[in-house]
């Protein structure tokens, strides 16, 4: 697992490359916390994400939750078929990631709860 952070004018792009499993989540946390501390929006690029277990998915969820708590715009891009399948397997709605954060950033109601 490797985390590549790119700074842009709008904020940070965090690309997660390779497997994201229980063994890696503790290592990944500091990089993600650092990315959350930067200015601007947070974009999680998952296009090169490999296998992801429940702990890995939970890590992504917690990242989004933190961004939300900070009032940060947070989007996930590059949902691969494998990633969607992993979400389906543990019953996590894809909307749990991006939509909540985006919606909060726009100052609207939370559409996931409608």
């Amino acid at each position: 697992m490797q985390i590549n952070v790119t700074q842009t004018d709008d904020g940070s792009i965090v690309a997660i490359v390779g497997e994201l499993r229980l063994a890696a989540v503790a290592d990944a946390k500091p990089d993600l916390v650092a990315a959350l501390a930067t200015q601007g929006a947070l974009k999680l690029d998952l296009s090169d994400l490999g296998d992801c277990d429940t702990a890995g998915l939970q890590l992504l969820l917690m990242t989004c939750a933190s961004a939300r708590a900070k009032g940060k715009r947070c989007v996930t891009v590059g949902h691969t078929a494998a990633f969607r399948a992993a979400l389906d397997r543990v019953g996590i709605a894809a909307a749990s990631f991006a939509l909540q954060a985006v919606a909060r950033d726009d100052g609207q109601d939370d559409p996931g709860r409608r």
Partner: protein
Amino acid sequence: MDPADLYQQTFRLEADELLAEIEAVILLIEENPEDDDAVNRLFRAVHTMKGSGGMCGLTDIANFSHGLESVLDKVRSKQLRVSRALIDLTLAYRDQVAIMLRADGDGVAVDTDRAADITRRLAALCPPAAPSGGPAPNQQPPDATSDVASPNPKPLVAAPNDPSVSYRIRFAPQPPLFLSGTEPALLLDELRGLGDCAVVAHADDVPLLEDADPEACHLSWDILLTTASGKDAIKDVFAFVEDISKIDIEDVSTDFIHNPDEPPPRLGDILLRRGDIATRDLDDALRSQARLGELLVGGGVVSGAKVASALTEQQSIARQQLAAKNDSVRVPSDKLDALIDLVGELVTNQARLGQVTGDTGNLLLQAPVEEAERLIGELRDIVLTVRMMPIGATFSRFKRLVRDLSGDLHKQIDLVTRGAETELDKTVIDRLGDPLVHLIRNCIDHGIESPEARTRSGKPPTGTITLTAVHQGANVIISVIDDGAGLDTTAILAKARERGLVPPDTDLSEREIFELIFLPGFSTARTVTGVSGRGVGMDVVRREVDSLRGSIDVHSEPGHGTRIDLSLPLTLAIIEGLMVHVADDKFVIPLAAVEECMELTADRFATTSGRNIIHVRGAPVPLMRLRDIFSLPEPRPPLEQAVVVNVADVRVGLAVDQVIGNHQTVIKSLGKLYRKADCISGATITGDGNVALILDLAGIIRSARNDEAAVVARNAAMRRPVAA
């Protein structure tokens, strides 16, 4: 009663309704074979027939229903198309079950060959590969589609007889779950192996990344699993994590399958039941939530008027659903009759109480007595409405009659019904069935012409019979209208002369000629068919309608059709009457027929050639004395009063000693001895406890006419020169 008999009796009541439903729905399907909703209704009715029949021990009906159910199931799943053969067989099934139900009660032998034949032909409708329960069909039916649809996915809702049970599993692991080496995804995979499984993770409650241990599990799951494997199998899945997890397994099958037809419960209700929210939270949310209509109007998507119209439609659907749900209690009609009798007694007693209170002049008593009168009036009105039933069920019976008869006679006839929701007393409805059958048979046989004849006279080849029911005051007018050839007055008159029913040299008005068709044994049909022409029918109609205190009106236009109006009272239990006094007796005249009351002064009254006439605003009206009709003792009072009544457009004055006034008349039927009494239709008990007879006005007029005809005939005989 043996409980088994009790069940069977209940089943028979239910079965009658199911048969009516089956017949009504299959005719709907015949009109529109693509009506999936109707196909589902038909399937459910047959399925219920099978299930209930089997449950109360009528296995022959259950087995017989199974064959049709299998075929309908294929129609439902689009493996088989609706065909003429299926419709005919369904009707044959319906008739056979009706016979089986009756036979079971009366010990009549059932033609089992016919049932077997229907089953065999039903089985032949199915594609050969399908298990049909019957012998292997030897031919491929032309209308069966061969591309059999893929098997249905396993339903979340367990079908009846399916041992599957739905469980709601709440799986809330403690944080060390991951580190114990457990991957929840694997557990969920295992559950999916047991059956149909819906998994929802609670992802919203995860802590913030900064504060959390990413290796601890902060997720929990709700799982809905439908499985036949049992609860233990589910527990086995969680066997290794039960020490570090909270696991609730709840059987929720009853929440799902009690009525698959109902819409699924609303989100709020489910959340409430699962304890995720409190009633107050739900109420608050619902209160603050904008309605869809408001959102759409606010967004400019649609106008307020359109939303209002859609809302009206929604409410109307809800009302219909409520009506269709038949949210009712079944009560034997004799209990209802007893209730009505008692209320009748109460009304009578109340009248007496009112009279006594008035006589004693006790003011303290007056208020409670008036209050009781009001309450009893309300009670009476409600009890009478309990007996009211929409006439629609009777109407829908005739669809079958028209379909079968028109087919037999090679005619094309549509039946149109209007006012099926019109309500009438149950007794009236029950007794109306036969007269309507006669009238409709007549329309089909005599009224509507053959398609060729219709085309020749420039009409569409398909004739129309219209059945309507409307309220008119205290009566319901039921009309049977056809667009056929109309009544042939010349033929009717010729036939009547031929049979000596009308003297050769008398001229009759059109109305009088129409009356002739109601004479016993009268038929102008040149050939006797299985349908009509035997001269039995219209007199039965007349008799039945008379006994219901109704009247018949015939309109006919040659070449354009015939319209027969039956005017019937809404109820047979209580009528508004006009109480009159003659000698020492009281009589009740149905108020609906009363036009006016007047004093019988000398300038209004005349006698010409032995007949009494009164002048009512310039028009001469025949006058009859109730005293003469009922042979009551003289003397007459110096100034009599006359009540002018109108029965089927015939005006007659009835001379009475005194008009007493309006009377709420609770009708008591007279005993068998009085059944043939021509001029009275019943009796009532007056406030002072005496009996007053209720006049049968149509009967009075009829008997007066007969007397008149007898006098005319006698006079004619006396004038004729006596042959040697």
